[in-house]
């Protein structure tokens, strides 16, 4: 009886420690992703964005224009993974296979997007920002076998309800990390993350 009580206590404490370790690591990654997407969105491809950057304001409405501003794919990815590693210690090679990256660049007629996972790539065009949610979810279903019942949540909701963030018509850098394995004390669990950042557009006041 005494031994059974001790065993039960050992299991309870070990499980608490195991989950605490898992949740700490999961939270570290979630926060690291926030820092990393904000770093990546600043990697503007200046030569490719000359037209967009030079347009400035809409003369009719005075609104700051963000059309035709492109991200540099390779440096934005580097900034993302570098910042994530600096915050969490997770190397690019350990997480890249679980990571979907979407670059969203508005143009005067709609929105161009590039969605990538490792070497796979989908390029497309949407007529308005609210169409991006479906495009990203379609890409998730192409890149992962989402029919497996054990698979973690695989649908993102951006414009799903009023309390979620909506995409505006600005450049975005979005990441979706699916079923990333996180080791606790003795159990291995998986977690799914979504993070995105929009370009913070400002024009110098002269």
């Amino acid at each position, binding site marked *: 009886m*005494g*031994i059974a*009580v*001790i065993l039960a*206590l*050992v299991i309870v*404490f070990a499980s*608490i*420690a195991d989950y*605490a370790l898992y949740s*700490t690591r999961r*939270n*570290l990654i979630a*926060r690291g992703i926030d*820092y990393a997407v*904000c*770093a*990546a969105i*600043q*990697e503007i491809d200046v030569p490719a964005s000359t037209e967009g950057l030079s347009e400035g304001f809409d003369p009719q409405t005075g609104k700051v224009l963000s059309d035709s501003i492109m991200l540099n794919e*390779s*440096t*934005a*990815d*580097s*900034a*993302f993974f*570098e*910042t994530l590693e*600096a*915050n969490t210690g997770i190397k690019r090679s350990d997480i890249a296979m679980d990571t979907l990256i979407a670059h969203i660049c508005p143009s005067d007629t709609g929105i161009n997007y590039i969605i990538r996972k490792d070497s796979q790539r989908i390029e497309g065009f949407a007529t308005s920002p609210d169409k991006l949610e479906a495009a990203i979810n379609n890409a998730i279903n192409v890149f992962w076998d989402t029919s497996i019942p054990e698979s973690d949540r695989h649908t993102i909701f951006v414009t799903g309800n009023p309390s979620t963030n909506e995409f505006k018509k600005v450049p975005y850098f979005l990441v979706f990390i699916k079923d990333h394995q996180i080791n606790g004390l003795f159990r291995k669990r998986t977690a799914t993350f979504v993070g995105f950042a929009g370009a*913070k557009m*400002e024009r110098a006041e002269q």
Partner: protein
Amino acid sequence: MSKIYSFIIIIPLIAMLLFKGVFFYEYDTKQRYIKDLADSTAYVVKVTGVLSQNEYNRLKANLNKYRTFNDAGIILKKGVYIDGEITALQPYIMGTRLQKGDAFVLFVQSSNVANYSKVENGGVSPDDSKNLYFKAKAVCRVEYTWE
């Protein structure tokens, strides 16, 4: 006989487990608070581009509520992003205004080891790699600067 057996073995074992559980809980909870403090300070730099002396003092005062953190244990660095890589890391001097796109690194470590570490090692271990300290790190890229 069974009473002696329970007093000598079972009760001390249960007490030890409870003791460890309490100290682990203390370590885990404080560690999370300390990470929160590091993150909120990094966030200030991310949206303003500067860490003022007041903000630093606030961080240090809050950290010291949980464990002793001296100035040597609060490391601040700045760097720049070149082709997506953080380079040219150097010490950040308080009040320096960073440029939009610069990197800022904040690392904090307590000056003494956590109680949980003392329980696990039977005191402070002479091998420092076995000692657990309260630590947190936050690396951000400046998004806004003030004029």
